[in-house]
Every structure is written in structure tokens, then in C-alpha cells.
């Protein structure tokens, strides 16, 4: 009996050892192949984006024409209001015939002239733009083979000091030689000006000095150029929709992502991202798909990009955190950006230029909580 018990015990032990199968590891029930990689966090560098300029963003679109031709882009890319016109033009022959003694140098008084080169600035000021720099110049055309001179007084619109010029020489056979110029940098728009006490100082024997025998014309004109900048009364709040994004984050079950970058900005404006609403697609009870704001996802707000200027960009570090308050971040159909645009302050160059670049350097991301596949 004792022998039988021993034999049976040993037999059972070996039967158990060899038959130990652990049913909970039965793979015929199926293996869930879903994996969540990088469960704590995964960081990676993404890219250096830019430089990107407004000109590249707009492509073939002419911003000035789009806004009714109120301003244009000059050859260097600056946004400007530019005007040029003749004030006076008279053939040499007519001038000669009015001289008492043509064999002597003569002074010919001219009528007063006035013009309103900056009248369109009023509309632009209403849009929130302001003249950062205004350049005003007078030029003359001298067809004679000897130099002549011009004297006079310029009186500007209220707020700007008048200026005089005396016997400013005009070179022989000059086409459009500038004999007077001034720059206004205080932002006060130059609505109008008046040219008074203008006098032409002609050389002797003026007729013989005209290669066309008197049929050339002596001319006077003005050139006005206002460089635009963002004004202090530019509308601060802007809603900027970003549609048709279609970022398929939902399937990766991401909970939180942080994106960082250094923004290098040459555009003279301060941009504040005050709020970002994440849009997602939802299907209503009737089966209609619509794009709605996703309440369960929050995005960092109050991100500021400082203003810079051409050749002197301002670098602003930014950090955007996208977080799912509940569950995971869904597929992103679009964004609604609430932006605040502020005019720059300080003495730097505030002129707007279509070639001013923005770069997003060292864009990098960290995803927290893993990526599920």
C-alpha cells in the first residue's frame, strides 16, 4: 500500500510537470496586436521652416490691387503710396520771347503751385496703416546746354514746417534732377503742399542753348513716396480660420503634444496668438457631417511673436501645447486662430515690405503618453 502511494505520487508529479499548460497564455484565443510606443514621451526635431515672405504666401496676388489700388509694392518690396506729377512745363521759345534782354541771365517768376499727394493716406489710416516714412522731392528738367537754377518756398499741410530753397542749380540737359527733398518721419501725413515764390534763373542766350532751337521744354515736378507701416489703431482682434487641415491624430491616441520653435520675424508687427480652437468633424443624428469646435482639446494661448525689421529680425521662442482634457486628441479638421496684431514701438524701421521674412527655426515636438498603432 505504501509502495503504491509513493508510485502514484511520483507519477502525478511528473504528469503535472509535463502537462503544465497555463491556459491563460492560450494564443488560440487571439493576441491583441495594438501597441503603444514611447509610452512616457518621444521627442524629435522636425524642421527649419522658412524663410517665408508675404510675397511668397500671396504668390501672384497683388495686395495693393486687391485693396483697390490704394498702395503698391515698390521695386524693393516696400508697401508705398507713390505720386508724381508736373507742376510747370514751358517751351524755351516762349520763355525767350518773354525776356527783356535775352543776352543776359534772367530770373523768371512762376505762379504758385499746389497739390495733394497724400490725400489717399486718410483712407489707409482708417485701415490701420500709417506712413512710417514720407519722402518729398522737387525736380526739374533742363534741356539747355548750360545749367540753370530754381528758387522758392514749400509750404506743407498743417503740422509740417515750410522750407525754402535758393538758386538750386539744375545741371545742363538734366532730365529729372532733384533740387529739393525732405523726409518726414514723425508719422504726420503730408496731405498737401504749396510751392510759392518760385523763380527760374536762366542763363544768357537761352535760345542758342536749346539743342532743339527753342522747342524743348523746361519743367518742374514733384515726387512723393510714403512707406506704410502698421498703425497704432490697427484692428487688434483678428479671427483667422485654417480649414481643410485633415490631421489624422485620432487613430494614434495621442494625449498631449508640445511643439516648440524659435520664430525669427522681420515683419514689423507684434503678433499674439490669443486663442486656438480645434475643429473636428462630427456627424449629427441625421447623418450630416459638420465641422464643430472640439471642447475636449485645449491649446496653449497667449503666444507672442515680437516685431522685427528688414535685416534685423526679432527671435521669439514659442511653445504650443495641445492637450486632450478627456480621452485623446481626435482628428483635426481645422483651426480657428484668434490673433492680435499690434504695431511696433521704438525707433527701428517700421516699414512694411513684402520681402520681409518669417522663419520657424528648430521646430521640434514632444509627444506625451505614447503613440498607439
Amino acid at each position, binding site marked *: 500500500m505504501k509502495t503504491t502511494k509513493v508510485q502514484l505520487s511520483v507519477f502525478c508529479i511528473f504528469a503535472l510537470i509535463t502537462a*503544465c499548460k497555463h491556459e491563460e497564455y492560450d494564443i488560440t484565443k487571439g493576441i491583441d496586436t495594438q501597441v503603444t510606443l514611447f509610452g512616457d514621451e518621444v521627442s524629435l526635431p522636425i524642421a527649419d521652416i522658412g524663410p517665408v515672405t508675404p510675397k511668397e504666401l500671396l504668390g501672384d496676388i497683388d495686395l495693393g490691387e486687391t485693396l483697390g489700388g490704394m498702395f503698391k509694392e515698390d521695386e524693393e518690396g516696400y508697401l508705398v503710396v507713390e505720386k508724381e506729377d508736373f507742376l510747370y512745363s514751358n517751351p524755351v521759345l516762349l520763355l525767350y520771347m518773354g525776356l527783356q534782354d535775352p543776352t543776359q541771365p534772367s530770373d523768371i517768376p512762376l505762379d504758385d503751385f499746389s497739390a495733394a499727394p497724400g490725400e489717399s493716406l486718410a483712407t489707409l489710416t482708417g485701415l490701420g496703416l500709417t506712413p512710417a516714412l514720407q519722402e518729398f522731392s522737387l525736380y526739374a528738367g533742363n534741356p539747355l546746354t548750360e545749367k540753370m537754377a530754381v528758387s522758392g518756398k514749400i509750404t506743407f499741410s498743417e503740422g509740417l514746417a515750410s522750407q525754402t530753397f535758393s538758386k538750386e542749380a539744375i545741371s545742363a540737359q538734366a532730365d529729372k534732377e532733384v533740387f529739393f527733398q525732405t523726409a518726414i518721419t514723425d508719422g504726420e501725413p503730408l496731405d498737401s503742399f504749396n510751392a510759392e515764390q518760385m523763380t527760374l534763373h536762366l542763363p544768357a542766350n537761352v535760345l542758342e542753348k536749346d539743342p532743339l532751337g527753342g522747342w524743348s521744354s523746361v519743367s518742374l515736378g514733384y515726387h512723393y513716396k510714403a512707406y506704410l507701416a502698421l498703425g497704432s489703431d490697427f484692428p487688434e482682434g483678428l479671427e483667422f480660420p485654417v480649414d481643410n487641415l485633415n490631421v489624422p491624430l485620432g487613430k494614434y491616441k495621442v494625449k498631449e503634444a508640445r511643439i516648440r520653435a524659435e520664430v525669427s520675424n522681420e515683419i514689423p508687427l507684434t503678433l499674439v496668438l490669443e486663442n486656438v480652437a480645434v475643429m473636428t468633424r462630427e456627424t449629427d443624428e441625421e447623418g450630416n457631417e459638420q465641422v464643430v469646435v472640439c471642447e475636449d482639446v485645449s491649446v496653449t494661448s497667449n503666444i507672442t511673436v515680437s516685431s522685427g525689421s528688414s535685416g534685423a529680425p526679432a527671435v521669439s521662442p514659442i511653445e504650443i501645447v495641445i492637450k486632450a482634457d478627456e480621452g485623446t486628441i481626435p482628428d483635426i479638421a481645422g483651426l480657428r486662430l484668434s490673433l492680435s496684431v499690434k504695431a511696433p514701438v521704438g525707433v527701428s524701421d517700421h516699414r512694411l515690405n513684402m520681402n520681409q521674412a518669417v522663419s520657424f527655426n528648430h521646430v521640434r515636438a514632444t509627444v506625451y503618453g505614447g503613440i498607439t498603432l
Partner: protein
Amino acid sequence: MKKTVLFILCFFALSSLTRAQDFRNPAQTAFLEKGFVRIGEYNSTSRNNVGASSFLFPSGDKLVTGLHASVSADAFLGGLKTLSSLYSQIDYNLVSYGWKGSRGFHTVEIGVKENSGLSVPKEVFLLLKTGTASSPYDLSAMRAFGNLYGEIAYGYSLPLSDKLSIGGRAKLLVGLNSVDVLTRKFEFSTTEQQYVLDLDADIDLTNRNKKINTDEEGYLNYASFTGKGRLGIPTGAGLALDLGLVWKPFRGFTAEASLLDLGGILWYYGNGGKSSGSYTFEGLKDLGMEELKEENIGEKLRELRDEVLGVVRPKAVNGYCKAKAIPLTAKLGASYSMPFWEPLSVNATGLYTGYRFCAPYWEARGGAEVSLPGIASFGLNAGCGSYGFVWGVRSSVNFLSFQLYASYENGVGGTIPYESIPLKANNKRLVVGLLYLIK
């Protein structure tokens, strides 16, 4: 008595209890009076220092992998080794012939051996499971290998006295195929600012059957071969020695020691390659308006892929010879027959196997065996080793002049149902052989 016989037969029937004729110690044949022919012996060994339960986890009514979100990092990574490795070896002895000489005993053996293995450092799984916070990562020592070679051996054992014998076996190794992929250096640094990859890996591959072509840049093109798939010439040759000693100081007691597979093979790797270099990724550069278009971004990503592959892909190198040792095994053993009943003996063995390329293995066992001459024998043993508790059974049965023998060794920890894949670290060995005893 009937119950005892029935008990013995049950063991035999249920657990394939057969005794392995262990002539691996070349000194053991010195005391044989008759010759033998081994008609064939199959010997397979599989070792793994991590089991399936380190990678699969029960979750409800199904299984999930260790990378599933429901499995914590501690639970998954805690079950892995610094270097998780699998090793498999199959020895097939085609035929052996032994005959008694004037003084000693001679043996001639012909066989084929195959071994393969895989080692993966834990940091691979650490990176995948937790992410980049623990940067930098040292993924060196990743290895995958396989070798196939033939063995032609001549052995001689000599009794120095009636108590002591020595023996040796010289083996000519004929290399058939070999592949060995080793990362000598694989460092990976991941930060938000940059990823840095530093790689130095060798791909040793013989070209017995086919020659792998290269592309125009010199990289191995595994989709393009020359040569037909016939059995080609050997691609390696080597020598190995087995040494043994058996000592019987007094009646009933036997002690033995052996050193097996001391040697290696000089392989010729005609399809060798090398992956070497460093790559730093700091983000895609110079993405202007034109580059941000979808098709151009795709082009940038393809360029990035090609740059990384330029470091990772193996470049062909000229054929070269490389000597590689085969796994060395050292064994010690002792047995003592019971004076009250000589068929019953107790024994103790110790084993150590050293590898260049996998975690070494050791074990120590104690057991008992009943040997009924000319009829059958069976034995049990148990002990511990690198992977914990081990146990084994062995048996043989004689019929006419034939002897069928087998042994089975395993650990504990269970297996995946119906798959016999071990759940824990394990060493499993199966030997089956047929011997013809020359009368």
C-alpha cells in the same frame, strides 16, 4: 512486483523515458568489450534566458504584448534581461562506428550540426516602451547568427589501468553555411534638438550557394543573386577536439570529466557586408514655400530615408576569412552504484557551455538511475542552472542487439498551450538515438 513493473512501464509510456547512451566523453568507450554502430542520433537543444511570458501578458480573455498600453513599463521591462537571447542547436549524428582495438577503442563518426541564435539588448525595448526620455541608448551587442557544418571525427580511448581511462576525439569540421550579423557599436541619441545614430555592424555571410550582387553604389542587393541554388562547395574548415577522462577508484564509483568542442571553424565570407557611419538629424532643413508642398515634402522625406539607409545598409566588402569558435562544453560527473543493489545508482553532473555570442549556460544536477543490463534503464535527475530549476528523464530499451535510447531535459514554468513555447527562461534538450551493439 507486478505493480513495480507496471510502474516502470508507465514512466516509459508517458514521458518517453529512454536513456541516452552518453559516449560524448571520449574516454567512456575505453572499457567497452564489443563494438557498436550508432545508426543515428538526434540531439536538439534550445535555450532562452527570457520566455514568452516576458513578451505576452494575459488581459481579459486574450493576450496582449508588452508594448500594449495596459502593461506597465516596470512589468514589461522587469521581465527582460540586459541581453535577451535565444539559442538553438541541432546535432544529427548520421552514423558512428566503434570497434575494439588491440589496446584501446576506436570510433569514427559522421554528423551534421546546426546552431542559431538571437540576442537583443534590453534598451531596444526600453526605447520602444518608454520613449526617448532615457537617451542616449546603447543598442550594441545585437546579434543574429546561424551556422551549419559537418563533422567527421576519429576518436580513440585508452584504459591506462582498470580504474582510469583517457580518450580523445579529433574532429574535422566542414563549414557549409554561416551567417552572422553583429552590431559592434550601435549608439542612438534622441533629444528634441537632434537624433544621432552611430553604427558599426558586420554582416558575415557565406556564398556557398549564391553570390549576392551589389548595386551601383556598392550596397548589397539582397534581391539579386548569381549562381544556381545547388549544393555548393564548403565555405569553411576547422578542427575541434574532445578530451575526456574516466576514473573508477573503487567498485561502484565512477568519476568523469570532459572538455568538448575545443576548436573552431575558419569561414570564408564571400557575401560579407559592413554598415558603418554616423548620421545626425536636426530636422528637415530649408523648408520654403516650394518645399512645403506635399510632393516636395515627400521628396525631402525620401532623401532623409536614403541618407539614413546610407549608414544602415551594408556595403559589400571583398571576401574574407574569419575564424569563429564553436560552443565549448565542460562537464564533470560522478555516479555511485548502491552496494545493496547494483542496478540502482545515484549520480551528479555539472555542465558549463561557453559561447562568444550568447549568454553562457551552466547547470548542476543530481539523480538516480536503474539499469537492468540487456533489458532497459531509466533515470531521473533534477537540479538547478542558469535559468533555475531543471529536471530530466532518461531511458533506454534493448531489443535483440538494438538499443533505443532517449533523454529529455527541461525546466519549469510551463509552456504556451499547444505550442510548447516556454513561458520562462528555459533550457530544453531532447536526445533520441539508435545503437546496434556488435556481439
